[in-house]
């Protein structure tokens, strides 16, 4: 972390405005300064050292566990034996755990269930939220105030766990797929975020489309959605992460149907609680007395729940930064 104290990069915060390519990706949080200001004292060695160590520690706290778990999942049984557990340094790499896990059995089913719930749930949530957000985004539209109030009230008062459980089971939701999606399909907060972006879509643009004969469906699809792509994408990703991570509704509504469990619940049962994996995954380790699955398999399950998040994370990140400005009027 060496910085020459005299470096004053004036105006270096933004790329030169003459650059022709319109790249909204760089429009981050507006920063007042990019270099050390001339009036600032030069950094002390102790200060810089303490700062560097603290920040390195913070990064290590996140990165090191992920490294160890990822490495163990691809280690050979010999490497795990030599390490006496989790593997810290690479020592024999194999993808057997993944091959074994994806070949057959509980984990593969759980993976497919998780994907299905995530995809279907996200589609349902997005259709409902986008429609509601647009439906409430036109100022002066009929009754949008009372409907908005109806939505916002749910952010502050809720019936709580048991009345919700009774309603869902009363509708026959026990052991049904829809009970994993519909009760939590609508996030009022997300609708409000979408709505605030949709209402900034230029009124002129919408009026122009209306004069051309477009109805509200058409305007939503061809005018509003294309001009707020970033925020729509980030909300979709938030919904998707929510579905991918959900496990409590499984515990509530289908705790006994192991063949319907998503990955998070499998992770909880077979890794976190160390119960034996049923089925063929650890058949080599005696499925009859259902021993705890070998460590490499357990860590492979952890990695499987992690990888989709890591894959979408860069996109979400980009949209954290750009989403704020992309809702602004274009054209």
């Amino acid at each position, binding site marked *: 972390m060496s910085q020459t104290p005299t470096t004053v990069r004036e105006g270096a915060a933004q790329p030169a405005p003459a650059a022709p390519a319109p790249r909204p990706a760089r429009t981050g949080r507006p920063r007042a300064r990019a270099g050390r200001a001339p009036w600032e004292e030069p950094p002390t060695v102790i200060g810089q050292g303490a700062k560097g160590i603290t920040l390195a520690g913070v990064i290590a706290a996140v990165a090191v566990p992920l490294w*160890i778990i990822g490495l163990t999942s691809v280690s050979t049984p010999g490497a795990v034996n030599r390490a006496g557990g989790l593997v810290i340094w690479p020592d024999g790499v194999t993808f057997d755990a993944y091959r074994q896990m994806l070949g057959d059995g509980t984990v593969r089913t759980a993976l497919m269930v998780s994907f299905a719930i995530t995809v279907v749930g996200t589609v349902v949530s997005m259709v409902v939220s986008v429609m509601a957000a647009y439906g409430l985004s036109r100022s002066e539209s009929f009754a949008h105030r009372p409907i908005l109030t109806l939505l916002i009230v749910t952010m502050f008062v*809720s019936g709580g766990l048991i009345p919700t459980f009774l309603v869902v089971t009363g509708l026959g939701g026990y052991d049904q797929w829809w009970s994993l999606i519909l009760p939590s399909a609508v996030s009022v907060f997300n609708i409000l975020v979408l709505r605030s972006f949709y209402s900034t879509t230029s009124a002129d643009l919408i009026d122009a489309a209306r004069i051309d004969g477009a109805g509200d469906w058409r305007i939503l699809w061809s005018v509003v959605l294309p001009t707020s792509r970033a925020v729509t994408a980030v909300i979709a990703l938030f919904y998707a992460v929510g579905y991918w*991570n959900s496990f409590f509704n499984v515990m509530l509504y289908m705790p006994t149907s192991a063949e319907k469990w998503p990955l998070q619940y499998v992770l909880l049962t077979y890794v976190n609680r160390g119960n034996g994996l049923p089925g063929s995954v650890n058949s080599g380790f005696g499925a009859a007395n259902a021993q705890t699955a070998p460590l490499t398999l357990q860590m492979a399950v952890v990695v499987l729940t992690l990888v989709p998040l890591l894959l979408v994370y860069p996109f979400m990140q980009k949209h954290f930064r750009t989403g704020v400005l992309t809702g602004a009027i274009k054209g």
Partner: protein
Amino acid sequence: MSTARSERGKSTTGEDAAGRRTTGRNGTVRLNWRTRLRRDRTLLLMTVPAVVLLLVFNYAPLFGLVTAFQYYDPLVGVRDSEWAGLAQFQQLFHDPLFWGALKNTLWLSLVQLVLFFPVPIALALLLNTVLSERLRNFIQSVVYLPHFFSWVLAITIFQQMLGGAGILNHFLRQNDMAPWDITTNPHTFALLVTSQAIWKEAGWGIIVFLAALAAISTELYEAAAADGAGRWRRMWHITLPGLRGVIVLMLVLRLGNALTVGFEQFLIQREAVGHESADVLDTFSFYYGIATGNYSFGAAAGLFKSVISLLLIWGANKLAHAFGEDGLYRR
């Protein structure tokens, strides 16, 4: 559609404007409500799915709260269950397990307030002094990441690092030191859950503080530096006052949610540390309501928590107003 019966927009002018869809919406002419209803019927239709889902899964449970005053029997339903008056609450207040859960909740809330609350502020201040934008973005990417992990995943990672078979204890045993298993020790459970919360959420928590820091004018710092204020005095007299509004707001939210210390986190780890230290109010309704089938008792516990929480939010806002800040809502 019940939403069509709005109290608003009953002015009787504007029959001449009927059907002027292109400009009517933001025009100044006040339309007849029938006209507006007909004009906006598509928009209303779009809100229907969200409204229906919220009515079923958020509003219906509110009415389900009457079960707290009943001896609810799932076989006869809410309507025909026997009324209990306040008997469930009497039983609740005589239940030592309930008081234990309340005590745990308040204790954990206090520990989180003291240990968790300052961490994002400190981290944001630290990050704000990092000059290189790329390094700053990288650190932000890393510390935001755990926010997107599920609790199952986060706790599994903790277990693998600090648990009885984890990396830390492996290292301790190798070096002939006494093993130290924090993940199953009920006495240090508050520390464990707080460190988990810090690991998972403190990074995400810095976003609001970074935004507030970016909003502080550089000129203030420059003027202070010209007047001879060193970096610590600048932090004390400029940075911290600049953060005051956000800090008070966050504090109000935290106090208002004093009875909500997390749910899945405790659900997952209850087996490992035992119910005496892992039961909080939210899990109490689950374990003594749903898991035992004693729905009315659990609903009473949930209702108690909701009412106290609303009072706390109200009180915390009063406090914020007393400090001259806006809090959650304005006066």
